Every structure is written in structure tokens, then in C-alpha cells.
């Protein structure tokens, strides 16, 4: 049996385990997993939909550029959550473990385990692209901070009291005279 064909048959199982493992990285993932409303549950639905698209692309052996949008959908969220960079990226590499887990659960499929090298390679490339996007997101965050500082809203906390300045000046004048 062809590897890709087998994986396609097991797509549902793989995806479900992959989403499950990814959402388990949140402290209270119950709602993220259960609600299917994209507006009530943006984290759960965006991550699930992003991962579903990524798996589809992997099975179709699509060009790397096609991965950008679904990767962004997942990474942009995890880049601003309380994860270390490695934790934020972990789900993409964890797909390897998920695939092996699903295949090893079925005796007929176990021989295919040795043929996973190519897929693993594809997954690595996807993960590396995810890392690029993660860095872009973090840079965007810092650009936002700089823009806010430059926009003048920082004056909120750096305001100078004119009367205090005058007092300082007066002190200076009286010292000099």
C-alpha cells in the first residue's frame, strides 16, 4: 500500500489526534476543543482549521509557498501566547509523532513506518517556515511597541509638570545668584 494513500485514509484520525495534542498545550482546553463557532472560539477554530489545511497540503505534496497562510493562521496566535518559542512551534514537529502513533496502532500499516523519511522531511520544512513566520510575528510586536512610543502616547507616562520645572529653574536661579 502506498504511504500517501494510507495516510489519506487515516487523515481523519491523524488530524483529530494532532488537533487534540496541540490544544492540550493550553491549561484549560475544554472549550477550545468543543466549540465550533469561529467567532466565539477563535483560538480553537483557527488552530483546527490551520492544521487541517496543513495536513491536506502535506498529503497533496504542495509547494512550500502554499503553507504560508495556514501556518500563519496557527503561528500568529501562538506567537503572542504564554509559550516559549519552542513550545509555540512544537505542534508542527509533533505531527511526526502523531503519524507514527496512528500507523503503529494498526498492524497492517506498521511496515509503512520505515517509509516515513520523506514525509518527515516535508514536516521539517513546514516547521522551518513556521519558525520564519513566528519571527515575523515577534518583530511585528516590537514594531508595534516602537510605533506606540513614537506616536506620542508615551507622553501619558512621561509628562513633565511645568510648574515643577519652573520650581527647579527658580531653584537654579536662586543658587546662581
Amino acid at each position, binding site marked *: 500500500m502506498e504511504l500517501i494513500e494510507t495516510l489519506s485514509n487515516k487523515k481523519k484520525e491523524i488530524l483529530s489526534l494532532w488537533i487534540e*495534542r496541540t490544544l*492540550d*498545550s*493550553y*491549561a*484549560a*482546553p*475544554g*472549550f*477550545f476543543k*468543543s*466549540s465550533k*463557532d*469561529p*467567532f*466565539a*472560539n*477563535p*483560538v480553537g477554530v*483557527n488552530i483546527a482549521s490551520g492544521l487541517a489545511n496543513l495536513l491536506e497540503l502535506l498529503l497533496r505534496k504542495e509547494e512550500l509557498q502554499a503553507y504560508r497562510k495556514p501556518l500563519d493562521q496557527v503561528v*500568529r*496566535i501562538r506567537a*503572542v*501566547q*504564554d*509559550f516559549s518559542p*519552542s*513550545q509555540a512551534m*512544537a*505542534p508542527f*514537529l*509533533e505531527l511526526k*509523532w502523531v503519524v507514527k502513533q496512528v500507523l503503529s496502532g494498526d498492524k497492517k500499516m506498521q511496515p509503512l513506518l520505515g517509509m516515513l523519511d520523506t514525509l518527515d522531511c516535508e514536516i521539517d520544512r513546514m516547521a522551518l517556515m513556521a519558525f520564519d513566520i513566528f519571527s515575523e*510575528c515577534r518583530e*511585528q*510586536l*516590537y*514594531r*508595534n*511597541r516602537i*510605533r*506606540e*512610543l513614537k*506616536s*506620542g*502616547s*508615551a*507622553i*501619558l*507616562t512621561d*509628562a*513633565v*509638570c*511645568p510648574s515643577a520645572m519652573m520650581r527647579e529653574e527658580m531653584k537654579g536661579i536662586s543658587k546662581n545668584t
Partner: protein
Amino acid sequence: MAVVKVDKLARSVAEGPSLMTGSIPTKDWMDVPAVFKPGNYAYPTKPEKLRYLDSQKGLSFPNAREWNPEDDDWKLPENWKEIILKGLADRLDRFRSLKIFMDCCVRCGACADKCHFFLGTGDPKNMPVLRAELLRSVYRQEFTRAGKILGKLAGGREMTVGVLKEWFMYAYQCTECRRCSVFCPYGIDTAEITMMLRELLHLVGIGINWAMEPASNSNRTGNHMGLTPQAFKGNVEFLCDDIETLTGIRVNPTFNRKGAEILFVTPSADVFAEPGIFTCMGYLLLFEAIGLDYTWSTYASEGGNFGLFTNTELMKKLNGKIYAEAKRLGVKWILGGECGHMWRVLHQYMDTMNGPTDFMDIPRSPITGTIFENARSTKMVHISEFTADLIKHGKIKLDKSRNAHVKATFHDSCNPARAMGLLDEPRYILDNVVENWVEMPENTIREKTFCCGSGTALNTDEIMEIRMRSGLPRANAVKHVHEKHGVNTLGCVCAIDRATLTSLMNYWVPDVQVAGLSELVGNALVIEGEQRQELTEGLRTLV
């Protein structure tokens, strides 16, 4: 609506650790300590700001000191626990609402999945029910018979430094937007629980600078920015110059003019920071177009009231200046600009704190004759109510094609929507000033609107990540209408929105700009005698 028990919610964790992340969140929520690290807390108040506020009549902000949330030792006063418990007892006695909120929650979980902080983080302590539980557990332990006897079995827990740190963490991961309250079958106002947590923390000198310095500036010079009367006036006049360049209309507003019919109060960000200044240009043009007899005050030069995020006494004091100025100038009523929490303070607290006023008239539009019965008690009318009334009576000429560059959607700013019910007026205005606008999905607008994620003085840059994740539910809905309908403008009626949604959009939906509603009105306004340039981007056009 999810109906779940809070314990189950908190324990809905992975069967095993994630292989890659190793995260094993299997502990009871009470046993997970708050850990502070760069990016997850806003900077503490500068001691000199706190000392200044403490020195002011009617205010108490004791225990000013240098302290760092990342340190184990927060340099709390020796008797901190006694101060906190006494403070809680005092507030339970003074505020009946607090006592009810402490007792009546049945932990149905209806609020749990409605908070943008929970939706962005998956942290159970960001579920409104659990955030309140941080205080409620101490209340049970110390103030209920069951808790005193049974302790943890009755959901009680001792007030420890760890609990205090947890309060600081989560009282500042709530924007008091009150979306959760919409879904609470008992009407518990979780924002008021956050307010109490923050008040209690201030008793031991724990607070954030982004709340306290603007509040201190506001107390001293009249506005958050600390602008002097001269600077404030100068900034408005600078905008008048811009208006003249763009439209050929010379606007000459007055300041502190006694005997004006109306006092106009708006957030100071409108006269100072982009994109608020474009909204301000909209106000100035509108008032010019209808020949309104109004004045600005350089003392009540701030609509915002960071006292709301601080404590009751400071809120009252900062709010009081608006009435004091109205009285001093002898105006008949007050017109308020596009601000968020100013309207919560006005509608829900001002009348009790500083009102009811007996020296002003029930607001009546001098242009249309409409009497704003809804403002009978406060004497203050929202600019959107006022503008919608002008449009309804055909008193202003609008050319929608001047907003041809705009494909809008409307973000209901939390406080005007949920605290004063301003839902239809902004939409009516949009219908009349732009050719194209669409609604975001039903469960993200009107009373159910999602917060920008940066309200209640959380609009500071050091917590940008927190702001981005808590703003995700809002941004996600904007992204949807951007992709589906090509929306490029997010309209709103709040100064904090204008500043922070801009950052939020930059991160999540970079092709969408943020605009105050009055800016869009100003764009479309046709004024007699104008010599308008080709303004392809409305009042934002660089000429």
C-alpha cells in the same frame, strides 16, 4: 451556552503531557502560582506619582515604594494582610453589590467562555467566574461561617502573599468590559469585582503606572497627557490650521468661555494623538457647520477617567471637575465626545457620586429642538446621539462619495454599548456618511461586542503580547469581514479603541485602519463656503 461546573472547567486538562511541550497542567487552579516575567505584567506605579496622589485631599494611596513584580519580596507593609482584610470588610459593608456578587454566584459557567482574555489564553483563571473566585475564596474563608469552619472544603482559602500576587496578575488581565455580565443569569458585574480587587491592592501600594500616572496628570493639569492649558489650546488650534488647509474653512473654537450654551468634553487623546486628531477635526467641522454655541475647557480637558480603574474616590474626584467646570462656565448642558469609559462613569456613577445636577437644563439641541430626556439627570449627551439627531432632522449636508475610499465595519466600543446602550445611533450615522459598511458576526457586536483587549489602563506597550492575545476575538471578527467584504476601516467611538485597535489591526489584519465615527462625519460634511481640496483619504489626506 455552555453549562459546566467550575471545577471541571479548571481540570479539563490533558490526559498526559504534550510530548514536545511537556506541559502537564494537572494541578488544582488554587495551587498554580502566578509567575511574573517580562511581558506579562504592566510596570508598577512610580513612587512619586503615588505620593503625589496620596497627598491630595480626599484621596488615599499609601505605601508608595519601589517594587518589582518579578522579585519574591514585594516589600509589602508588615500588616498587609490585616489591611487587605479590613479593606474587604469595609467594602462589603459599603457596597451592597459586592456582598451580593460574593454570595450569589452558582458557578454555572455561563461567563466562562465569554471573556476575551480567556478566549485568547486558555488560562482558567481568566474565566470571569474563576477570576472572581480569587476574591470569593478569601471572602468565604474570612467572612462566611462555612468557610471559617470548613476552609478549603467550602471553597475558602487563606489570604497569602501568593494570593495577593495572583490578584495583581488577574485584576490586570481584565479590561472591565463587562461582556461576561451580559451572559450571567444573576447579572453579576464582574467588572466591579475587578474594581474591588484593584482597590484592595492599592491599599498596600500595588498598582500599575499606566493607570496612576495619567490619573495623577489628570488631577494636576486636567488631562491624561499632562497638557497645560496653553498646550491644550495650541493643539486644538493646530488642528484648526489643518482643517483650513484641507477644506478652506476657518474654525475658531473658544476656550473656557463663560456663558457658552454647551461645554464640550472629549478624551485628550483626540487633540493630541493619531488617529484621534482626525476625529477631533470631525467635531470641529461639525460644530462649525451648524454654528454651535459651545466652548472647550482647558481644565476639564479630559473625558477619560482612570479613576474608574483605580478607586472610587479618585474616580469621583476626576469626574467632579466636569461638573465644576460646567458650573463655573455657566453652561446649559454638556456634550461629550467619543470616549469609552467616560460614558460608563457618566451613566452609572456620576449621578450618585457628584450629581444630580440642579444648575443645568435638560439638554436640548439648539439646532433641532430635540430634548434629550435620557440625559435628564446627568445633563450630558453623547456626540453620536447629537449627530444622529442632526441627520434625522436634515440639518447637515452629507456627501457619502467623500468617503468612497472607506469600506467600513463598526466596532461597538464596550462602554458606550454595554454601559449606556448606544447601539443604533452610530449605525444610523454610518448609514448616512459612508456608501458601504457591513456588520461583523452577530455574537461579536452590539451588547456582545468584544473588547479591544487594552482597556482599563492596559493600553501600555510593555504588555503588547497580552493585548494582542486578548484582542484576538475582536480582530478575528474584523479579519472575517475584511476577507469576505473587503472592509478596510474599523469605525469606533472610543479613544482607547482608536489608539489600541490600530496596534491590534497592525498585528492581525494589517490592511484595516481605525477611524472615529466623527472623522467619517467630518469627511462627508458639506459646508457652505468651503474650498475643499481633492481629499482622497478624507481628513487624513496629506496635502
